[in-house]
């Protein structure tokens, strides 16, 4: 994982710089999303990793599957990746690109996990609090997980604010057994 993101970073930076130059951040985002979706498809994944497939066939097939959704630069990226045998890192490139884009736009992605569905007022308040804490715009995705029993767990990048009942019970268990 670590190695893949290290390899993917220069490609993502190149794509991001090009997109910014051409003022096409959104369309690059779409293209990389599509490429990532195609590359992670099970059949395509097996095809990419098949040693019997020659480069020109892989390139043609991949571009054909993507169809006319890729512009000239997007197609060039596929060609470069095929040439350097780096097709497997497409999802990492896409996520690194999104991270760069979010950083540029001053947006942080937050994942909010709660045991029960939050009301719109609760979620709105939560996002406001988070925006104040991180002093950036927060794009929150909400999900539910009965496992955490109660409270919320918020993941923003590497930072985790764990206010779930489950983790508190766990730390109580450690305190008592230590």
């Amino acid at each position, binding site marked *: *994982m*670590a*190695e893949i*993101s*290290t390899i993917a970073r220069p490609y993502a930076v190149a794509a991001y710089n090009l997109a910014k130059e051409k003022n096409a951040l959104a369309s690059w985002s779409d293209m990389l999303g599509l490429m990532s979706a195609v590359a992670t498809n099970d059949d395509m994944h097996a095809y990419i990793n098949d040693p019997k497939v020659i480069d020109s066939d892989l390139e043609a097939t991949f571009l054909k599957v993507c169809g006319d959704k890729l512009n000239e630069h997007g197609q060039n990226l596929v060609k470069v990746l095929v040439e350097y045998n780096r097709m497997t890192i497409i999802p990492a490139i896409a996520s690194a690109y999104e991270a760069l884009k979010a950083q540029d736009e001053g947006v942080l992605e937050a994942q909010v996990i709660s045991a029960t569905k939050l009301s719109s007022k609760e979620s709105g308040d939560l996002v406001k609090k988070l925006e104040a*804490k991180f002093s950036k715009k927060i794009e929150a995705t909400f999900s539910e997980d009965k496992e955490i029993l109660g*409270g919320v767990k918020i993941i923003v*990048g*590497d*930072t*985790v*604010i*764990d*206010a779930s009942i489950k983790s*508190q019970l766990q*730390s*109580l268990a*450690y*305190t*008592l057994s*230590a």
Partner: protein
Amino acid sequence: MQLSTSEISELIKSRLDDFSTSAEARTQGTVISVTDGIVRIHGLSNVMANEMIEFPGNTYGLALNLERDSVGAVVLGDYEHITEGDIAKCTGRILEVPVGPELIGRVVNALGAPIDGKGPINAKETDKIEKVAPGVIDRKSVSQPVQTGLKSVDSMVPVGRGQRELIIGDRQTGKTAVAVDAIINQKGQNMTCIYVAIGQKASTIANVVRKLEENGAMEYTIVVAATASDSAALQFLAPYAGCTMGEYFRDRGEDSLIVYDDLTKQAIAYRQISLLLRRPPGREAYPGDVFYIHSRLLERAARVNEVYVEKFTNGKVKGKTGSMTALPIIETAAGDVSAFVPTNVISITDGQIFLETDLFNAGIRPAINAGISVSRVGGAAQTKLIKKLGGGVRLALAQYRELAAFAQFASDLDEATRQQLDRGRMFTELMKQAQYAPLSVSNMGLTLLAANKGYFDDVPTDKVLAFESALHGFMGSKYKDLMDKVEKNKALAGDDEKDLEAAIKDFKATNAY
């Protein structure tokens, strides 16, 4: 241990009191690989070097390699339950161990947790295990002696408070014995001792602890043990943990003595960690910074001046210097001192005590090679008594060795040479000393005085030690006041020398040995 119901509920109550349920924001990452105690973690973007990392199951690790996309950490203790995909959390704390007088008399592991079954240690303070040594301004020159109680060490390679004196030799040459005797002799000398056992058999450590207990030395000693079955990380950290415990006393204007037994094993543990972290190997496969792990450790053994102590204690302790004396031990293979780690540590320390297998097997114990054992600062710190009387020992032994080699070829020797040989033989015999029997300064002075003045010359070589112990016994009973006076002054004042000589004559006239 039996607990009553009320005690159990009391225990639970106190633990619940400490428990807080606040949710705090913590940086976390994902474990991507676990190999032989080394964990690679993705994420943890804000981790500090040497920060403690929390793994599931109340296990902690130490972040050692900070790379762009991953962190290499070493697990402190068991790592079998950590799996790929586990969450690793930053704690925001650098590794600390408990310090203070509460640890005295206890056996603890490298993290300061008790392993002697004597209940919890209620230390009031903790301190970082990695600290920077005092600088030039904070130091004071070494001028007070550490009495090891060994005739050969105190007279030929004296150790001062704040010195680093290496004990080096092959396996089974009595390295630990010298160090343990030095600890035993610190009784009543206002010295706190720390014995750090690294990578030794648990049974060996248990033996040392038992011997210390038998000799009443555990009353002022802390034992830090990282046994051979502990993880390499703990074996690597144990010396630093022990050092921090010793620094507590140094910084408060007290004296401490720390024994690292032994640093070869620490280097080996560090080599293992480094190779698993994929750091490039160098000479003997040790990483590039193997010199630094020992130099930064031994640099912390120092004598600090009054100003430092006063500043450190916020003026509570005034006009006292503090010291930490280190006796690192290095094991050589087949007497090879030019191997990597021995040369490093020899160059770092302020002198070394060489122990040799040949001498040990010849019955000369402690098996100290007087020719190549040196103390670079200890002379300034020697007690006046021993300095005055012990000066001739080194010379006599050096001349003896030279002549002994020469005398093997010559059949007829002149009287002067023969006398010198006899004298050398006598001194060699006199430097022998039983284990766990350190000598007081006055007794040592008495022996040296008798030897210098020739009172041993008519004693047969094989009777020298018997003569010595009989003399000590006689003086201890009949001339107790004189001996007490010498012990108190640690020097010969006025007519002391004459009185002592008269007493020795009295002994020789009236006693058989």
